[in-house]
């Protein structure tokens, strides 16, 4: 039991990184992004090439994460910003297209066969009760915790964090008040990309596969976490993702594989939206 719980928390923490990115992008530009998985994956593919050419694992991964951040900024500039004033559906669809486009671009460049990318933090592991936690698991939890704390201080203490909140609440009023709305959008997507990259660094070694589209499938779990948390709440996204991770781990442990975990994720989203549409921490619509 404890083992499944801890493993669940560890994968939940990785989803949480992505989910925070989704919430950030949603808060920062009112776009429900389906690209948060594949942006990080693209960074990892670049890292894979660097590592393949002899660069140390951790350094290549770091560069991959940075490139994912740059990719986020590029996406914002050329695909999101032109959509201002269009219905929310346009933003969602464009991110879907980007997820698909990146998937097939990766497939064209690197192929669709499975690649592996080693853990950037070694492969040691410790036993806690009946659970075996790898250093990757521990790093995921540490990163998620750091992100949570960072976001908390960012939104409550920093001027720019407040600017982000203002820009989301009402872009036009924020502009009049001198908030650099464009910079806020760029920042949200850039940080969203970095978080997406970090999630990929954790998830790829943990599940042992670097394949196009794989991270987009993980992003459904992150979307589930974000929705359970309320879509506009950072701490909600983290709690929601942990719930998803634990539910997934428990169902895999006690019921079995074969798509059961996907069924659990689906049931979680459906029941959240039916019972409490604004999620655990979401603002009232």
């Amino acid at each position: 039991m404890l083992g499944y719980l801890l493993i669940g928390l560890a994968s939940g923490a990785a989803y949480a990184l992505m989910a925070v990115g989704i919430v950030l992008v949603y808060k920062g530009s009112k776009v429900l992004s389906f690209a948060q998985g594949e942006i990080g994956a693209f960074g990892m593919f670049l890292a894979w090439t660097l590592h393949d050419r002899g660069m140390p694992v951790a350094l290549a991964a770091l560069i991959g994460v940075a490139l994912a951040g740059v990719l986020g900024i590029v996406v914002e500039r050329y695909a999101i910003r032109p959509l201002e004033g269009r219905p929310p559906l346009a933003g969602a669809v464009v991110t879907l297209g980007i997820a698909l486009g990146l998937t097939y671009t990766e497939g064209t460049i690197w192929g669709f066969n499975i690649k592996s990318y080693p853990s950037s933090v070694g492969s040691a592991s410790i036993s806690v009760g009946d659970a075996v936690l790898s250093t990757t698991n521990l790093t995921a939890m540490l990163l998620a915790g750091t992100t949570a704390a960072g976001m908390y201080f960012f939104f409550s203490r920093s001027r720019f964090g407040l600017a982000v909140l203002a820009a989301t609440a009402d872009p036009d009023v924020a502009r009049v008040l001198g908030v650099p709305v464009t910079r806020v959008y760029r920042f949200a997507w850039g940080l969203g990309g970095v978080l997406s990259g970090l999630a990929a660094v954790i998830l790829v070694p943990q599940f042992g596969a670097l394949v196009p589209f794989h991270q987009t499938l993980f992003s459904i779990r992150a979307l589930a976490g974000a929705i359970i948390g309320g879509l506009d709440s950072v701490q909600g996204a983290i709690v929601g993702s942990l719930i998803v991770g634990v539910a997934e781990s428990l169902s895999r442990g006690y019921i079995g594989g074969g798509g059961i975990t996907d069924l659990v994720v689906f049931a979680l989203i459906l029941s959240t939206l039916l019972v409490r549409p604004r999620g655990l921490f979401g603002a009232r619509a």
Partner: protein
Amino acid sequence: MPIAMPSKAFVLSVILVKTTAAMSLNTLVGHAGQMSLGQGAFVGVGAFVAGNLAVRGLPLPIAVAGAAVAGGLVAAGTGLPSLRIRGLQVAVTTLAFGVVAEKFLFGQQWFSGGSAGLMIDRPVPFESDRAMYYVALAALGFAYWVDMRVRGTKAGRAFAAVRDSEERATSFGVEPGPSKLLAYTVSGAVAGVAGSMFIYVVGAGTPSSFDIYLSLNLVAIVIVGGVGSRIGVLASSALLLALPELVPKTIGGLNIDLGRRAPLIAAWLLVVVVVSLPGGLGSLLTRLGNRMFGSTTGSKDASTALADIDPNVIEERARAAAFIRRVPRALSLRMPSPALLEARDVCVRFGGVQALDSVSIEVRRGEVVGLIGANGAGKTTLFNVVGGFAPATGSVRFRGRELLAEADSARSGFGVARTWQQMGLLRAESIETNMLLAQHWLAAYPASLGILGFGAAGRTEAELRRRAAAAMDVFGLTELAGQRVGDLPYGLMRRAEIAAAVSAGPELLMLDEASAGISPEEARGLGDEMLALRDELELTLLVIEHHVPLIARVSDYIYCLESGKLISEGTAAQVTTDPRVVTSFLGRSATVRRAAAVALETA
């Protein structure tokens, strides 16, 4: 369309099946503004249900019908959260369902034959690829027809209203939740039909036939085609599905193999289209068509319509007006009743703001009642209370019936219609469509069956069209029937909105700042129009106005609100000279008040 290359009948059939699935998605996205990222899963459900029925020896039509029912039910279940939320979160539900279907449902031995899949033999007389091609073509025709029917009936107008604004939709008498659910159901049913075609065309189905990529590629086809455009979907299918199959893999030794690159191209094309060609291929084709054959719509000069005030048509208009007034309303709603609308002690509180504080008003039958007050006084809030959009305590009775206890969408049936400060019509739709939408409560046939033409849909629609024509005639809009509301000049837009409200056959018409944004001359005309509405159409009017001289001229009685409280009521002369009203409007400067008094007398 006869087959150009019979040897390719099979390939073309598969393309037809996918186009059918894309058309089903178009009905959902284009008309209802809802997104399904799991449409491929609905197709798969249809395929396996039809496959199971076929394996048990049931004939093709029954298998297809079963697939439609299954697809509709599953889509409705997935779209269930749309009853509670407005956002795109439902799209995530459909995406998650797409994954569940692929990884779980389609892997079940009992349902899909497990990972080996399900095999069927084509029944007589459809054994040949060629015969099946025609069946698949008929299925696409069906999907096209359904999409067209949706657009032309009650269901599609309700979808469009919900897509535009759920709040406005209720003011037309449309219930948003059930409308969205119906959209999912119809779309899922047609997707199910596409699935049944798949299993008959291919003869086999495996979990990977209906993976999440299929769902996402269907989205790409619809978006590239131009959301809501049937022709666009066909064009985009031809471009993204047929072209890569038909172009040879090598031309003159050059390896191009479009088929392998098609998904990559489709995905990025999707991004490019959303960013820089929002109307998709459909809008390109329409523009091309207009250039080649001359524009068929929108060529009429709007200003000519206002000029046709020929005295000879007055008699005819009077008849038309009498025709509009004839609506099937319950006897209890037709009894003589001096007080039409009675609001008693209405209170509304938004957080810490008391928007309305114990306001009581009465509107008698056949009166024009003005509602004045500074910005933020609570005038529109009072309208919203009557319309059912603001949480209120107290009592609002219409012909003695308590409105606060009724569903928001029931108002239009009782005979209450309103206009909005910011345009209540659907800008993207024609005047006529808006007229028909406004008569939603009169379309007594079931929306779902109406799509298929059952339930007296044809007769009712014809009747609604006659009523719409009469209303357009009365308001001099006949020439502009096909014009998009968004393309009209502002004054005409306002006129169309009033005409639409009137076409619903209301007894009480509430106008929210009808004179806002129109010129002083037009405003003068508006006053006469209000009196005409009262006298010729026997309407009772409750009017919010900032233009005090205008309202003073036409009102039988005026209420003045300030910060949520009623500060004055009476005849125009009483209210406009009431010191509290004057102060509320003009402040305490003596000069301003003298100037205003002069302005009022000369108006």
